[in-house]
């Protein structure tokens, strides 16, 4: 990291910091959950199209190859997400706040 980037982190804009804090308190939970919902739908789409990459062939490879250019950018993060060991506590649906 460049020195000036570190410096800029040391002196943040106060109003921006307050706005960020407020967003963290009020908006981030909703945004994170929306992202999680979208990601679960995308995972399903990826599974049906390129599932053979993780050993679950659903579509014939012909169609997978036709779709490959469109899904290519997401493959790395998708594989990382679905192949990672997960617990139920990982999901926002089961976060318990306030204790």
């Amino acid at each position, binding site marked *: *990291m460049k020195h000036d980037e*570190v410096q800029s*982190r040391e002196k*943040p804009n106060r109003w*921006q*910091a*307050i706005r*960020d*804090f*407020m*967003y*963290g*308190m*009020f*908006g*981030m*939970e*909703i945004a994170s*959950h*929306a*992202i*999680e*919902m979208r*990601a679960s739908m995308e995972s399903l789409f990826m599974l049906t199209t390129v599932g053979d990459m993780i050993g679950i062939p659903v579509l014939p490879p012909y169609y997978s190859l036709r779709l490959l250019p469109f899904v290519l950018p997401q493959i790395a*993060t*998708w594989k*990382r*997400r679905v192949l*990672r*060991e997960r*617990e*139920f*506590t*990982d999901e*926002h*649906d*089961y*976060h*318990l*706040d*306030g*204790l």
Partner: protein
Amino acid sequence: MNTLWVVIIAAVIIYLIYNFYAKPIDREVIQADVKKATPAKMYMDGVDFMPTNRNVLFGYHFKSIAAAGPIVGVITAANLWGWLPALLWLMIGVSFIGWASDYSAIVVAVRNDGNSLSAISHRLIAPRTRSIMFIFIFFYLLLIAGAFMGIMASLLAARPDVPFGIIILAIMGFLAGQMLYRWKMDLILVTAIVVIVTLAAMIFGPIGATPKLDTSGKPTGAISWVGPINSAMVAFNGAIDKISGGNALLTVTDPTAADPRVPAPGADGKRVSTSVYDAATGTIKTLPSYLFWVLFLLVFAYLSATLPIWRFAQPVNYIGFWITLLTIGFSAIGAVLAPFIKPAIGAFALDAVKPLTWVPVASKAWQPLWPMLFVTIACGAISGWHALFGSIGTARQLEYETDALPVGGGAMFTENTLALLSLVAVSIAGTGGGAGRFAAGVGSLLTVVFGDGFKLLGTALGFGAFMVIVLTVTQLIFRVMRVTLSEWVGDALPALKNMHVSTIVSMVLTVALVLTGTWVYLWQMFGAANQLMAALSLLIVTVWLKQQKRNPAFVLWPMIFMYITTLAATLITARNLYVTIVPLGGVEAAGAWAMVIISALLFVAAILIGWDGYQAYQGFAKGGGKAKKAAPAAAD
């Protein structure tokens, strides 16, 4: 003592501890490095792992840890021991244990590829640790659900100005979910509509009610419910109670007298009989209206537990957080201004130290300051749940390692100020007990900002905010409880994998505790389970630091203290139940026995984890055993 002194003491201590204790540990022991890649960067998937600005993450982490815990515990402890022991434990606890627990749990997860604490314990300590933590979490949730359901049902039945706001909150929750996710309306507009309507409903609840006066014209503490909404609620409760002809369906006894249905003692120190409390025998009557409100809460929680989270639970939480923030925020302004504007309000009316309830009489409950204070006030000083959450949520979004302290430690210190504000509210209120004292204190603080005419409305808002804080947590508890239950025993009992079955089983167990249990004992056992979880998280960090050949003193000593304290508290609570409630027989005895068995389970589980942790620690200390077997991901 007044409110300003609390503000000054807290500000000075937090500044000193953060800068001269926490920062050196972050720098020298943990050696946080701004250049080291965090899991959020290494494994970014745009969902769970996502580098996030530290100010955003600070707000998110604070919102996730702060609500009912720091408020309810302080209220209970201040009523049992006075404000001074509560203040001392809050400040000492957060300074030397609380921030260290939250911060270190995030750090250990960051240095272990963003794995959760239970996954790390599985690898670092012993495989069974993970299984035992499941049992821990389930009973922890059961106890807190019982404690919260009990106090909420009592308040709804006893305070006719409160239910209207809660009913509107439920309706607004549905509406907010619909407006946000289906109608795609602007968040600010939705917020304005639902928060204003809910706040208005909470303020309308007490309108028309007037304090009852004695013959000399002084307030007696009782209220005439003659307003349009509160009188309707009185009539509604009365109509339900006619089902049993006004007779109790069952009676229970609360040796701690903390049940909201037990009236506060008068000036002569004696309690008077009410429609639900018999002063001569000390028994509390469970009337049909109480059961109705239990049922109302169960339906509320059932919807939260089984509907998609965006449909109900999340919008209710969102509204609830606004209500809480506005109420607490204005109360905080009142607390700072009170000594200058209205010194009489800012002065503490509660005893600094109450006569210690450590009575070594064989047939009576024991509430010694140690260890019971340290489990009664859990969140606000230290909480195991924070560590669990920090390791799975915040740790995976940390942009830089150096953000762990301002986010994890900073949020804990901020939560501590929330607990202090609750302590201030309870301490300045001269009358009432438990939640009533908190609400009265909030009402007084709000008069500093909004004028004397706001007292009754402010008190209602205090009750409303208290209810909202507790309710928003309770609705999520059943959601987590049902999934914990199905994860834990779903393979052995496949029926429990069905979310409706697991929710109903969780609710039946909770209702059994609500109807037969005693609120304070439930709370203290929850506190013990929570603090044990904190001790276990500190244990995991201690073992990890030993593995990394670093000095674990800043977590080792807090861990030993919390471990011994909470084990002792678990035993004392079990003993209190056995001595004071089991001899009564009937349903109360059944509830007490259930709680004694749960405490025995928690005790044995904690001993097993402690033993495994000790062996792992010794293994790493000798440089062999576990150290050689540790998986690569556990390495720094």
